[in-house]
């Protein structure tokens, strides 16, 4: 039931999956920034649809969400944004369940998934939707051929793990450490033990939460991951650019450069 575009991203080499919040800090600048991720080597882009109460995010991404919402981002604008994006990699929508649930004339996730499919979205990550509540979205994704990626946490026990793997398609999002999103200076030992536990499962494993440098990327891929997910370290560049009122091209170039470093690190880890 996996989406072929996402399967392809993991086929030959480790997948580099950057995240940005759409519309951070403005619609036009954000288009440039997301396109810079693709130029920097992104294999999949996780594109955040900002929700006002992002309980799984640390301050970096929370601030990005505030900037985006203040910049006028709405669900309707998000779908336009995806349509306007000129990138040749799959896009995974990362958002919170209430926005998915509210969209359209009837309550429930189907109208959102249908619309997402029509604008070219390939899958979803929904941090506040555990397996227990996921059936309606899973069914809608199956109906429209989109992937639903579940997050595996260090606290997830074996029983839950079986269930998450059976529900997940595309890849598993392996949360590298407890807590919320945010760039860190080291690779957690929890990451290695999580990857060891997951080795037996035949689904790509992409590690996120705290990855900041090419060296982190290399170590995580060498530890057995099939991909890396990087958000806060990239969002930091946008935050700094916004604060310094830097030209969009300059910030985009910095994003592209960090992406190149991360992708190179991931490739090195695979050797």
């Amino acid at each position, binding site marked *: 039931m996996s989406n072929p575009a996402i399967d392809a991203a993991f086929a030959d080499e480790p997948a580099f999956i950057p995240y940005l919040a759409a519309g951070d800090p403005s619609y036009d600048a954000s288009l440039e920034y997301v396109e810079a991720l693709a130029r920097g080597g992104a294999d999949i882009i996780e594109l955040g649809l900002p*929700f*006002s*109460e*992002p*309980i*799984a*995010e*640390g301050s970096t991404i*929370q601030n990005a969400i*505030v900037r985006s*919402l203040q910049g006028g981002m*709405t*669900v*309707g604008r998000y779908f336009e944004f995806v349509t306007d994006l000129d990138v040749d990699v799959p896009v995974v929508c990362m958002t*919170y*369940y*209430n*926005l998915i*649930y*509210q*969209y359209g004339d009837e*309550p429930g996730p189907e109208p959102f998934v249908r619309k997402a499919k029509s604008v070219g979205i390939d899958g979803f990550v929904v*941090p*506040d*939707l*555990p*397996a*227990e*509540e996921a059936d309606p979205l899973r069914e809608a994704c199956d109906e429209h051929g989109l992937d639903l990626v*579940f*997050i*595996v*946490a*260090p*606290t*997830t*026990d074996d029983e*839950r793990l079986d269930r*998450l793997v059976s529900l997940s398609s595309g890849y598993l999002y392996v*949360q590298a450490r*407890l*807590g*919320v999103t945010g760039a860190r200076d080291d690779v957690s030992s929890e990451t290695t033990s999580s990857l060891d536990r997951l080795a037996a499962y035949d689904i790509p494993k992409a590690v996120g939460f705290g990855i900041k440098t090419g060296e982190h990327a290399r170590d995580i891929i060498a530890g057995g991951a099939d991909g890396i997910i990087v958000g806060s370290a990239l969002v930091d560049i946008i935050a700094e650019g916004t604060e310094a009122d830097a030209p969009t091209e300059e910030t985009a170039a910095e994003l592209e450069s960090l992406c190149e470093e991360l992708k190179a690190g991931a490739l090195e880890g695979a050797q």
Partner: protein
Amino acid sequence: MPETDTTFGDYGGQYVPEALMPAIEELTDAYERYVLNNEDGFMDEFRERIRDFGGRPTPLQRADNLSERYDRDIYLKREDLLHGGAHKLNNALGQVLLAKYMGKERIIAETGAGQHGTATAMAAAHLDMPCEIYMGRRDVNRQRPNVFRMRINGAEVNPVDTGRGTLKEAISETMRDWATTVENTHYVIGSIVGPAPFPAMVRDFHRIISEETRRQTREQYGRLPDSVVACAGGGSNTMGIFADFTSDSPFSTAPDSNTDADDDVSLFAVEAGGSSLDVDEERGVAPNSASLSTGSEGVLHGARTKLLQNSDGQIMESHSVSSGLDYAGVGPELAKLVDDERVTPVNVDDDAALEAFHRLSQEEGIIPALETAHALAFLETETDADLGEFVVVNVSGRGDKDLEAALEETAQRDIPNAPAMEVFDE
């Protein structure tokens, strides 16, 4: 019988990050064993402590002057006399004790008006547990006495600067802490909100209010009341006093709920109408906190419930003169009871609440919390006879914490019964 269902009709559920789900499972197990089945005598210990440390039972007092004013028998359930000055201790003590039984080493909690934070800090000190409280920056400024009380009881108070700095932001921030520390930390949610089993568990710790009210109304009046009135923000004092009167609810476990015509007891949940019931969708602001009266179904802070949200599903900034009611959501069980027409949601505005705040103080010698003042204001604004002859109002908490805010807000308005507000500087 263990209650394993996570929902109340379409409401409730467990919408939280995966990292928290094992803790939610562990808590569900502990709730069923200790609270529902009294394993290891947990509920016996809880009842003993809420009596000796908390001061239960609280009185059911006839309000003579209000009774005369409204030409009805008005009785006040005096939760303001519970230790700490609010009903909040029932739940805080219950959860901190449960955390202890579960072997947790640290307590965190959010607070709006500070009453839940204060109760949690007191319970944590009483049971010797380290405690950290998250509180919106705006609420820290509105509720300084409670900030001091939390600190004096040994809790660390962390101001939250995101958003408007009220309860919604404090809950989000506490969930973030919990996601980081879940292995040794218990999150004491302060109302009947959040992922299952919190709404049912918090209600069960507060159920003692309605147990006592049923007994006291029979003893003192000879029958159950015609109506029960309680203010509703998240809804914990509301469900506390409603729990054993909702006999047609499948969730009631009142042992004697069929011995009276309970369906005849009308239940009124009084929400904060703020300055207006209209919303500014563009700015994402609702100048009220009336989610039962005006909200729509959505998912926030772990549960599906009635919310103040825009058409996209973004959560609105709410408003109330009372920080304790200033929340964009409400407990899922209450949302269900409103849909079932078992509970009637009503609302009163900021001005009416302030007027009622002064009225109770002047006429009965009881300074109520601004939350409670909303319930009392409903007595004044309600003109038809739906309330009946015999009315119980839950005085959810005392108003000491609100003095500064009440005086400031009163000074800015034309409140007809307000005393002189000038400061004596010489």
